[in-house]
Every structure is written in structure tokens, then in C-alpha cells.
């Protein structure tokens, strides 16, 4: 078979056929887990879901150059695909959404979508948006102070790009050329408010210039384009040349969350055509044209993903719920009197002591 330009594209980036298929597999796994959790939400098993559908291409590609167990990530609430790429398992993700005792992120203490995982170098996330960007910069500062070869990436939406903490973080990283990759996943909507009501000038990447770092705009549905930008950013960081801001223009295929209905504020024709912007079929086509993906391989991968998602959700559901007796624990790393210790009260109406 003749070499096509597409085939050249991934090999020129140093990616093998196996690696691009593995990227494709991660995207499908993220989508499969995501879709399964919507079903579980509809079935009343999961209280809430905030989706990453449409972001998978950018997330897998940008997390791909990061070294597992070495590099760090401060995620945001759509980070299903990137946390999977960083090493979390599908079962970890579903277990967290079910708020089970064994949830690696929080032991059932946080809402779904609040990713974190100490074994994976994924720092715990809260709900007020943008706070995690400072944590990423702090981790990078720690590595810089210690002279460690560690890169930290963080993700946030274009709405969050307006938070002062994000600007403080980018400025500080720029001043000291800290090894950070700032990833803005711009899906055009901050819940309901569109980009032109959120970002003056319309470009998050343009803001990088003010902080002395490159600001790169990538098509977030172009997996290899995202990978190329992330690889360069990762190498820059490791060379000591400082941070990069990558603005990935992605598509939000779902409503903001399971508590939202995007038909209230998005044009019906826009909603109708969202699927055409889906990064997964686009990457599949690219891999087919490159001669990497065939029907047989695709079917095999999809069957494998389906089985993995089934197993993950089955195992997660079988895990025990948290217990009230444990709710006072781990308030302080070193327990103190009056903090994190139960005040002995008689249970009221069958409830546990508070």
C-alpha cells in the first residue's frame, strides 16, 4: 500500500500504529464509560454526571506525552479521558461516580466528576472552578525548587479562563518559566453562556502573550494536531523553557451536566449538527485512511471496550458504600481534639451520630 499523507502524519510525530490505535482505544473507553454513566444516572444509580463527550480527542492526545508516575495533572470536571490516559481505570471512574467506599478520589465524599488519585499523580479537585490551576503551578514550583524533571498539566474551560486565579497562575508560571502545560478546553459554552459573552476578543490562547508564554490554538477534534502541540509543550517544559497555554477548540456533545438541558440556550440546528463534530469518528476515519484501522480491528476494539465497561460498572456497583462511622475520619492528617472527632450524641430517628 502506498504511503498516504495521513500515515506520514502520525509516524512523523513519532507515533507507531500501535500507539495511535491505543489512543483511539482510550477515546472509545472514555466515551463508553461516559455513556454508561449517563445510563446509570437515568436509572437512578448515579446522582449526577458531568460529561466529557466531545473532549476525548483533545484529552487523550494532550495527556499522551505525559509520563505516568512521573508527571502530574490537576484535572477539571470533564477529565474522564485524560484521567484514564493518566492511569486511572474505568472502574475507578465508575466507583467514584457511585460514591463508593473504595472510590480512589474521595471515598464517596465528593460529588461525581471531582477527579483525583494519589497513586496516579492526579491532584484532588474541588468545585469552585480554576482553583486547580494554582495547584498545578504549585506542583511545578515544587519540582522546580527540587530540580526534578517533572511536568505538570492542568485543564480548565474557557469560562474558567476568566478566573483571577488562572491569571495569577499563568503569570507566576511565566515569571519563573515553570514546567506547566495549561490546557483550556474551549467548548464554546460556560454552562449556557457562549464564548462571545465570556472571553473578550474570543481567544483564550491570545492571553498567553501577556504572560510570556506561547499560546497555541488547536482543533480539539484533531487528535494528532493536539498531540503535536502537547508534545512540543512537554518538551519545552522539560528543556526549562517554561509553560505553554494550549487552547483546544472542542465540542460539547451533551448538556453541561445531567441537571442541564442545552436545548434551552443552544440553537436547535447547532444541537442537531453536533455529532458531525465528534472527534471519535473523525479520528477513526483518519486511522482508516492511514491504513492503521480496519473494520476487523475496529470491531475488536469496540468489543473489548464494551466488555471493559461492563466489567467496570459491574465491579464498581458491587463495592460497598461508605459508612457513617468513618465520616469523622481523615479530617486532619494528625487527628486533633475537637476536630474530626465525633461529638458523642445519641442517634436521632435511626440516623448516625453527627
Amino acid at each position, binding site marked *: 500500500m502506498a504511503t498516504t499523507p495521513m500515515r506520514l502524519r502520525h509516524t512523523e510525530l513519532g507515533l507507531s500504529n500501535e500507539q495511535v490505535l491505543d489512543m483511539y482505544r482510550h477515546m472509545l473507553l472514555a466515551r463508553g464509560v461516559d455513556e454508561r454513566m449517563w445510563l446509570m444516572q437515568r436509572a437512578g444509580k448515579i446522582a449526577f454526571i458531568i460529561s466529557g463527550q466531545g473532549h476525548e480527542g483533545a484529552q487523550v492526545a494532550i495527556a499522551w506525552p505525559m509520563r505516568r508516575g512521573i508527571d502530574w495533572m490537576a484535572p477539571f470536571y470533564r477529565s474522564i479521558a485524560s484521567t484514564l490516559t493518566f492511569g486511572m481505570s474505568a472502574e475507578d471512574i465508575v466507583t467514584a461516580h457511585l460514591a463508593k467506599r473504595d472510590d480512589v478520589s*474521595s471515598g464517596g465524599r465528593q460529588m461525581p466528576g471531582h477527579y483525583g488519585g494519589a497513586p496516579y499523580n492526579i491532584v484532588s479537585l474541588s468545585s469552585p472552578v480554576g482553583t486547580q490551576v494554582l495547584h498545578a503551578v504549585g506542583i511545578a514550583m515544587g519540582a522546580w525548587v527540587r530540580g526534578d524533571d517533572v511536568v505538570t498539566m492542568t485543564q480548565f474551560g474557557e469560562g474558567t479562563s476568566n478566573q483571577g486565579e488562572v491569571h495569577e497562575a499563568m503569570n507566576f508560571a511565566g515569571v519563573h518559566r515553570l514546567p506547566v502545560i495549561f490546557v483550556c478546553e474551549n467548548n464554546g459554552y460556560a454552562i449556557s453562556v457562549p464564548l462571545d459573552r465570556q472571553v473578550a476578543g474570543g481567544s483564550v490562547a491570545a492571553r498567553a502573550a501577556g504572560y510570556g508564554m506561547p499560546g497555541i490554538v488547536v482543533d480539539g477534534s484533531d487528535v494528532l494536531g493536539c498531540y503535536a502541540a502537547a508534545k512540543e509543550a512537554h518538551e519545552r517544559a522539560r528543556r526549562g523553557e517554561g509553560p505553554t497555554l494550549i487552547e483546544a477548540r472542542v465540542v460539547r456533545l451533551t448538556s453541561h451536566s445531567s441537571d442541564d438541558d442545552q436545548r434551552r440556550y443552544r440553537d436547535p440546528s447547532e444541537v442537531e449538527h453536533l455529532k458531525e463534530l465528534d472527534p471519535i469518528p473523525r479520528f477513526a476515519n483518519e486511522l482508516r485512511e492511514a491504513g492503521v484501522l480496519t473494520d476487523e480491528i475496529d470491531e475488536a476494539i469496540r468489543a473489548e471496550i464494551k466488555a471493559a465497561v461492563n466489567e467496570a460498572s459491574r465491579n464498581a456497583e458491587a463495592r460497598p458504600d461508605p459508612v457513617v462511622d468513618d465520616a469523622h*475520619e481523615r479530617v486532619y492528617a494528625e487527628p486533633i481534639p475537637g476536630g474530626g472527632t465525633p461529638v458523642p450524641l445519641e442517634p436521632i430517628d435511626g440516623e448516625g451520630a453527627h
Partner: protein
Amino acid sequence: MAELNIVEAVRSAMDEEMERDERVMVLGEDVGKKGGVFGATDGLFAKYGERRVLDTPLTEGMIAGAAMGAAVYGLRPIAEMQFADFVYPAFNQIVSEISRLHYRSNGTFSAPMVIRMPYGGGVHGALYHSQSNEAYFTSTVGLKVVAPGTPADAKGLLKASIRDPDPVLFFEHKKTYRLFKAAVPDGDTVVPIGKADVARTGKHLSIFCYGFMRTCALEAAETLAREDGVEAEVVDLRTLRPLDLDTVLASVEKTGKALVVHEANRFGGFGAEVAATIAEKAFEFLDGPVTRLAGPEVPGVPFHHTLEDWYMVGPARIVHEARKLAAY
């Protein structure tokens, strides 16, 4: 035993901890070459270099948030708020992130870090360089809050705070920085967090205080003894959270009377927690109303010296309140 003032004690603690543990770093505004606006980090930049003694941009939120990230990474950061009054841009990070990290991650992450908070009035700093804002933080679960009143405690408690596995807000009263020198034990002397100090024993009433109020309360106690024959016990809480309940209650059980003193305003202040706890747990021992003496209910310390003098809680007011309480 070296004779040090409080700012020297603070500096000495940081210097020794940086010497013994290379994970310890300092970050804040002007902490580098200048050595901090109060001189607390003087000399550390030259000794440990610009990475471990890091001048940050003017962004308190970043100072706190990046310190948390560094703590997560494995460092032991000491973040300096130039004035406690400037902490509010960092409030989100301290109250919502740093305090909750351990609990929300089910104990898998923690934030061993110190935030130094130069606080307090009487320094001609007006509304925005005089605040005693400890109550915002003492009411936040997940934080420890320390407020020393002597050079020895400043040094020993700061060492303990730096080594503590949890986030500690360390309140240093600015007026005490160079107010007096006192003996500080040589060598690696750590004062444990969570232990109050009975600064003066007495039998007629207990005065609970911290920070600069220790000095004021001790002076008041001497006046009371001399002029009234009233022997006041002065309990320097030293740590506000966790509160040393055993020492507090033991003192009330002995004297039957409690006067809680702080410079911050009264309503919802830290004294309310101390007073309520005494009322709940030592009711049978009380022989007078649990009394609070606190700063006035105005939004801050006003500037002109007559106004500032009006604001400040000092020995004379403590004597006045103590006499009323002692008369019961």
C-alpha cells in the same frame, strides 16, 4: 539561652528548619533580598537561594494555592502573607482548598504547610494593616491556628507548625515583633501545637488570651495584685485550634471566673467559642458570668492615634473588666 525578640525568633525557627530539612521553602512578597517588610526572612535569601526563598508576584491567592501544590508535591512551604489584612484574595484557597484537601481526598492528599500571618493593631496601620482576622480561620475545620505571645513560643511553635502534617495559620502580632526580648532555649526546642501555657498562676479569676494580649494580661494581673489584692491566672492559649480544653477548664475549675480577652471584635469572635465552651463544660464551677473583652464593633482600627488608642484592648481595660468580674 539566647535573648531574642519575636521577629528574630520567627526568623531563627525558619532558618533552623530550612537547615535541617531541604523540603522547607519560603514564599511571599518581598521575602527575598529585602528579607520581608518586617525583616522576618532577613538573610535567608542569601543563605538558601532564590528558589527556596522565593519572591512572588503580588498575588496572595497564588501564594496560598501554589504553596498547597508544592505541599502536595512533597515540600514544606512557609507562605508569608505580608499583612494578615491582605489574606482575602487567598481566602478561597485557604478555606475552600487547603483546609478541605485531606478530607475530600479521603486522606490520600494532605497540605503540610504554614501560612504566616502578621496581624494586629497598635502599629498605626489603620483599617488595612491592623486586622485581627483569626476568627475566619478558627471556624474552618481542617486548619490549625496558632498565635504565640513570646519569643520562645514563637520559635518553638513555628518549628512545630513547619513539621506539622496539616496546614497551620501562624498569627504573629506585629506590635510584639520588636516589643521585648526574652530568653529562647538554644537548640532544637519545639513547643507542641495544642498546648496552652499558664503564664501566671492565680486563684481569683482566669484571664484567657493569646498573642499580644498575653503581655497586656500579665501587666493587668500585676496591677490587680498590687492595687486590689486580686490574683489573676493568665492562660495564654497559644494555639486557638485545636484549643487546649483541659488547661482552660482546669483553670476555670480553680478560679470559678473566666475573662476571655482578644483584640478582634467581639461578635462571633474566637472568644465566643472559648466562652461558650466554658459555659457548657464548667457550669458548676462558675461563680460569675463568663466575660468577654474584645475590640469594638467597628470594621477596623481607625488611623488617628486617638482613634487607634480608643480601639485597642490594653492592660487598663483588662483591669477594668477583671475588677467587675472579681466583685462577683
